[in-house]
């Protein structure tokens, strides 16, 4: 067990090292990326440019700059942004985690519950009009890009029908802290939750339906039928349970990636200042320290989420437990 955890940890370090080197090199290989002139300001004199270059350490070899940056992220934690100078990036990432977690967690609850219902109903009523309708809706959900859907949601709830009874409860865009105003926290997040969940409801509903139908043809289902179990019991206790493996794998990866910053577009559209928004702004400004911090954080999360998925497998599938 300890060995497994250590191995995971080793993998994580390796992945993070690789990614950080790549990010660092891409940044400095980009033509015109040298941040000194942008930091120094327009029409800076050569003396000022040299002073800025020196104070930020851009005159040192790349490996020294890399080591200093890693030290500042992981050891001293005082790495500051190149754009909003003096802004410490590690605390900024920490401050943004609750926002992203609130968004992704709520959306995850929504999409897991709804997609399980859809998957089961569709599988149980296979090839009926209801099945076809649900699958068509699922495809529609998958096909709508989240930034477009988000803007349309905003257009409806914030602009065109903002004054109608249906959407007058929708608060202005932005995030409210749960501790300050739980009701405001919930209300501001309802629309973003739905927007983010729709894509995943479509994917997960379809995946679950296919998995249930596939497992319904397995030998152990025939055995269960032969034992004389009811169809409902077979569906819920036997077919659904093994079908959830694919579901959990997907969920682990998606949840990890979303918490790591992939909810970027949703956060940008709804003005939620989470990890994704930080990453987006950093990329827009080419702010290397912030890009580095958010990428490190994201890769850490994806690796951790994968590890958690592996453990959940064991809980779900008795066959894995034996081996």
């Amino acid at each position, binding site marked *: 067990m300890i060995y497994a955890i250590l191995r995971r940890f080793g993998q994580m370090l390796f992945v993070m090292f690789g990614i950080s080197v790549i990010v660092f090199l891409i940044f400095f290989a980009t033509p015109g*990326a040298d941040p000194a002139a942008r930091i*120094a300001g327009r029409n800076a*004199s050569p003396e000022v440019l040299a002073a800025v270059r020196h104070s930020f350490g851009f005159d040192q070899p790349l490996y020294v700059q890399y080591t200093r940056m890693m030290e500042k992220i992981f050891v001293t934690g005082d790495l500051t942004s190149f754009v909003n100078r003096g802004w410490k990036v590690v605390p900024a990432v920490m401050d943004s985690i609750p926002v992203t977690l609130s968004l992704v967690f709520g959306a995850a609850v929504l999409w897991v519950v709804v997609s399980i219902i859809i998957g089961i109903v569709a599988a149980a009523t296979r090839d009926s009009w209801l099945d076809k309708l649900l699958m068509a809706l699922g495809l529609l959900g998958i096909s709508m890009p989240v930034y477009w859907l988000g803007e349309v949601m905003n257009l409806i709830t914030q*602009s065109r029908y903002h004054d109608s009874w249906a959407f007058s409860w929708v608060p202005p865009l932005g995030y409210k802290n749960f501790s300050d105003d739980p009701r405001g926290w919930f209300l501001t997040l309802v629309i973003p939750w739905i927007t983010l969940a729709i894509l995943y409801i479509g994917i997960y509903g379809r995946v679950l339906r296919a998995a249930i139908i596939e497992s319904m043809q397995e030998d152990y289902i025939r055995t269960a039928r032969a034992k004389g179990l009811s169809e409902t019991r077979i569906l819920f206790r036997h077919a659904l349970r093994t079908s959830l493996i694919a579901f959990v794998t997907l969920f682990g990866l998606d949840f990890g990636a979303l918490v790591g910053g992939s909810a970027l577009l949703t956060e940008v559209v709804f003005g939620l200042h989470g990890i994704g928004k930080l990453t987006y702004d950093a990329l827009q400004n080419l702010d290397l320290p912030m890009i580095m911090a958010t990428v490190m954080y994201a890769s850490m999360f994806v690796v951790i989420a994968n590890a958690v998925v592996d453990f959940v497998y064991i809980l779900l599938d008795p066959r894995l437990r034996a081996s």
Partner: protein
Amino acid sequence: MKKLLLAASAAALLAGSWLAPAHAEYLKEHRGGTIRLLARSAAGTLDPHINYTDQGWQMYQPIYDGLVAFRKAEGVEGFSVVPDLAEALPTVSNDGKTFTFKLRKGIKFSNGQDLGVKDVVASFQRIFKVSGPTSGTFYAGIVGADKCLADTKSCTLEGGVVADEAAGTITLNLTKPDAEILYKLALPHAVILPADTPAEDMGSKPIPSTGPYMISAFDPNKGMTVSRNPNFKQWSEEAQPDGYPDVVQYDFGLSEEAAVTAIQNGEADWMFDALPSDRLGELGSKSMDQLHISPLSAWWYAPLNTRMAPFDNEKARQAVAYAVDRNTLVKLFGGKVLASPVCQVLPPDFPGHEDYCPFTKNPGAKWSAPDVDKAKQLVEESGTKGQKVTIIVEDTAISRSIGVYLQSVLTNIGYVADVKPISSNLQFTYIQNTNNKVQMSVTQWYKDYPAASDFLNILFSCASYREGSDASINISGFCDKDIDAQMQKALDLGVTDQKAADKLWAAIDKQVTDKAPAVGLFTPKRLDFVSKRIGNFKFNPQFNWIITQSWVQ
């Protein structure tokens, strides 16, 4: 009238507190409330000695003070310099090289400290100690600045900025006369901060201020709260008037689309970023009374690299200037309301501006229509026909469309043209560096202060060209010894006779325009969209909307 006001405010100062009747009455009636501003992102560091953005400079206006300030007024008035922390404009001696300021008494910083001459000296040293972006240009003429630039840490400006504690005066010595020094001192880079402010970029930490407001909270990811400075007592209405709102809440993060909607819903009062062009029609028809259009002293232009083929040939450059249809560009930018055609360097209503346009059908004062035949003929004469030209533009919708249009123009007159959009954050430094071999690009220049040299001398002097550097603002690489000498003459002349100097600048503007090192595209205007409750909207030509002179109740 102006003199009267000045005398009156001086008298008022003696009396203690006094307000112009109108302002005082309005203050009673409308004082209070919170004004909510929106921007996509923060403007970078909070440090006024370093921040070099329109967004930052606008917000500093009711917060920080220099020895002098631009008058907080609309129209041309707003371009004039008035005494701020100094009692009066400085007395000039030593052939225009020595300026003596007398500091006002009784002013306190927002942290309760008294303002004294030592703060002024320390602030001037700090400009160099923090490697302020303009320390090597605007303030390099102060005695001792060369030493400070060479070694920032040990900067003393000895002999350059001298304080007399007893008399409460500060003497500023320059190495040579500078007609623009008062403008430079009125910029946020020269505001007075407490002497004990650390000599490093303060980043996200607010620095105590002298104005009617202070920054009370800041998070670059969320927003900035600006509240009243409890120690403020109005000393000069024209330099630093008391404001109406109690709090200015500046929130960062909403997209432009969302910000427009928020203002329409009355959830916010104003947005910094440009209005998204797909919403203009809707706003124009539904909320015309909430829109304010103001002229900007700015220039959208296409620098042509005078050191690389084909634009090392003057005729080839003029050909492009003749061929570009400014009306099309104006349309691309949002129509006549938002921009006007231009073919010279100095923007309209700017010192030294005299209408001039050689590159049009019927050359004269104004641009009328492109002359494509003339352009084709010039390309033939130059012998550059068929050469390849790559245009580097910013990766924004407007710049890309301008780039594609220019590509079609170049193709039409006989070049093989290509457009490359690159990230907006990189483009401006990328096109400056000669190592990137940029032939043509599209960019903008906004004035720092109202002087012709801020366009002509900065953008087209030999000294602004620095080979292989990202900071080489003379993007065209234009260097004409004769024009350079005239610019120097105009700068010197400005010390004694600004009117004559502006005449000379007008002539220089014409000469530079004739040589076509860059093609003027259009003069943009500023469109401000405010909420219904905003009253008393005033637009200052130097720092844009005067935020705290508007009321919300």
